[in-house]
């Protein structure tokens, strides 16, 4: 899969969680990329690999902060 398609896929997953009412609780980054922990009643962790999706997450964090 191209980087572009992979990033689109990752961004879609982020949107899916947010659309289902999840909020980002924790974010951390390491050698393997970015890990985003969402929570609603349950918790899920999403690993983000691509640069474009890591930029996108920052936009979503900003939006959540402003809510």
């Amino acid at each position, binding site marked *: 899969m191209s*980087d*572009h398609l992979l990033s689109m896929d990752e961004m879609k997953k982020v949107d899916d969680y947010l659309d289902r009412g999840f909020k*980002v609780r*924790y*974010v951390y980054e390491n050698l393997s990329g970015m890990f985003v922990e969402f929570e609603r009643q349950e918790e899920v962790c999403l690993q983000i690999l691509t640069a474009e999706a890591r*930029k*996108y997450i*920052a936009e979503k*964090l900003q939006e959540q*902060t402003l809510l």
Partner: protein
Amino acid sequence: MADLRIDLAGIKSPNPFWLASAPPTNSGYQVQRAFEAGWGGAVWKTLGEPILNVSSRFAAVSFNGQRVAGFNNIELITDRPLEVNLQEIIETKKKFPNHAIIASLMVEPQQEKWHEIVKKVEAVGVDGLELNFGCPHGMAERGMGAASGQVPELVEKQTHWVKEVARTPVIVKLTPNITDITMTAEAAVRGGADAVSMINTINSLAGVDLDSWNTVPHVGGKGSHGGYCGPAVKPIALNMVAECARNTFVNVPISGIGGISNWQDAAEFMLMGATGVQVCTAAMHHGFSIVEDMIDGLNNYLDEKGIASVMDLVGQSVQRYSNWGDLDLNYKVVAEINNDVCINCNKCHIACEDTSHQCIDLYTESGRPMLKVREQDCVGCNLCSIVCPVDGAISMVERKSTIAPMTWNERQSLISSFAR
């Protein structure tokens, strides 16, 4: 006609083009020829205790047919007695009272030696002094030049000693052979410098002769590192000027030096904070008359921009130069290929495929080979447009981002608020 006069820390000159302290300003004969040609000022070849030079002295690096892309020299400061130089400065100043003559000075780092030379040189009516803390070769082995200029404490102390007796503006010339030039620039300011100039030459070895295995140049079979200058060093010099210009502690005028070869280079240095520029290699390559094109070109540029005085250029681009962490991560450009102009050399495709992000596709349309950028995969690196030999065949065009601007620093701050 725009006003090309500059005032650099009180040193006035009819235009911003000065000859740098170097072989072109070795004598009154040369400086007078330069002023007749149109140069606005000259920094006299460094005065100090007369040295002995070697033969041979210069070397140049050619690249793909361009001669003197870079220039290397192992010549030292003046080899003539101080009194001979001073007499010629008097004669030159008498003939050209409105041109700037700045004396470059270098002595051992001792207070009395600086006091002695400053008093003697100022007595003949120079318009300013430039302290040579930059020459990397020869003199540095004796504790002068770059050896002094690499130690902020020595820069500050020697500048202070000069300022104790100087009555004319003092420019401190800095060496680029240091990790962070703002450290020594700040030291010069703390010492009382009225201005700083940069860059002096960069430690270099021009080459090795593959037949004789001698260095280039060599002195009877032995070589020694020299100072590198010329067009190749311009980006390094421009960055150092810009870094000093945006440093709030370096709050003195800057004289820009380093690979300046035409009016465009000069304008770039001035936009990045230089009040004037100094030129050496281009004059050594093409002669003093190049200043005519520099003056005409700068004049036309200012007229086209509607700028009345060249001083209004100074520093206009400095605020656009910042830390990487303050750049917008979401700004986006992509390559766009104009197949009507493209000659199908495929250099862009090869460069992108081999060394960048594999986003330029080859295809055929009505039997004609074509190239197309897959925008979604293009990261806007510019490489294709850089290697393209045809003007207008590849443009980098802005694409509106779907997400708001955010810098790395802003992003890190935001993410830290989501840390566990």
